[in-house]
């Protein structure tokens, strides 16, 4: 890097930053440290909260339906938490070697996210009726003679209508996110092509343009 004009550009590029910018960067760094610490425990705290609440509810009002619904919720929450943690872990431990394997692992992550969203779209409508049956059974001393009727009553209540609207909104958000992910996937594929082309030129540099 002896070219004087490159040195000039480097000096220009590295010229002193705005002191206010410097201060803001320090603020961002301490915020990142706090967020990093919180992130490590958030999933576990959430899972403990949901599982603890479910077990507590199931023991207050005992009955076969309550116990089954509580068990399904506990298993479902634990499974989802593990899956979420695994997904985050994967995105953090992106392959740190060459760019091609980095992009490859990014592509794999995006595909995993797409699968996760698809799973969410399938499981959300299944999980909600389980929660409703569990709640109704809690109210009725752990027994529901006719779960379908309980569901129908719930669907006609204000709470049921609001929940279904929220579920529809959540489904729209997930579908939009899926579209974004598909665009991201296309972008990553273009990037992979750009790196491959660059790599090919480095194998066979041809006449220098400098």
């Amino acid at each position, binding site marked *: 890097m002896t070219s004087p004009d490159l040195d000039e*550009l480097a000096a220009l590029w590295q010229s002193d930053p705005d002191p206010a910018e410097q201060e803001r960067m320090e603020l961002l760094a301490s915020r990142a440290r706090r967020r990093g610490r919180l*992130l490590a425990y958030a999933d576990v705290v959430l899972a403990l909260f949901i599982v603890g609440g479910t077990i507590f509810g199931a023991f207050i009002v005992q009955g076969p339906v309550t116990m089954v619904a509580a068990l399904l919720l506990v298993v479902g929450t634990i499974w989802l938490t593990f899956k979420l943690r695994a997904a985050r872990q994967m995105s953090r431990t992106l392959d740190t*070697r060459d*760019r091609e394997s980095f*992009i490859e692992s*990014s592509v794999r992550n995006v595909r995993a996210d797409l699968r996760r969203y698809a799973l969410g779209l399938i499981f959300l409508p299944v999980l909600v009726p389980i929660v409703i049956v569990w709640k109704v059974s809690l109210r009725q001393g752990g027994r529901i003679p006719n779960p379908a009727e309980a569901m129908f009553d719930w669907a006609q209540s204000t709470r049921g209508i609001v929940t279904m609207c929220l579920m529809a909104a959540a489904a729209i958000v997930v579908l939009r996110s899926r579209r974004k992910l598909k665009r991201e996937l296309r972008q990553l594929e273009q990037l992979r092509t*750009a790196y491959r082309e*660059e790599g090919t030129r480095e194998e066979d540099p041809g006449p220098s343009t400098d």
Partner: protein
Amino acid sequence: MAANGSREQLFAQVSSTCTGLIYRIALSYEADPSLRNELVQDILLAIWVALANFRGEASVKTFAASIAQKRCISHVSKRAREPRQVELSPEIASGAELPDEHVLRNDQKRRLVESIQQLPIPQREAIVLCLEGFSYGEMATILGISANAVMLRCQRAKATLKSLMERRS
């Protein structure tokens, strides 16, 4: 693997010595100031997380640059659109009172930044590291290619950058 205490120390080192580098790398990928802010925060968080696996094989600066470049590539692909052409603020170079030569310098810097933002990503990351003063060996570690390939890529990036800057002047 870095222990929790040493992770704190390493992050403090990153905060005190690498924030300028991180800011400039983010600047080369994102023209929009608010999105750049988010990107810088993402990079810092990624560095915090990744420091748990830092084994000291490279310097902290090289490590931070490597993470920053990768987060920027992810950012660009997540944005999934062509970069928005946001006019860069004149305060990019300095926020101090601006005599004439500083105005000129700021204008040059703005031209440089805009030209770098126009480069294809593989060349952009090479020239940014080059301008940051990394050696070819360090750049090879960060980019995961041979030092010879780095040299060739820098040459091409430099030529493209020159022509882009000439077009802008």
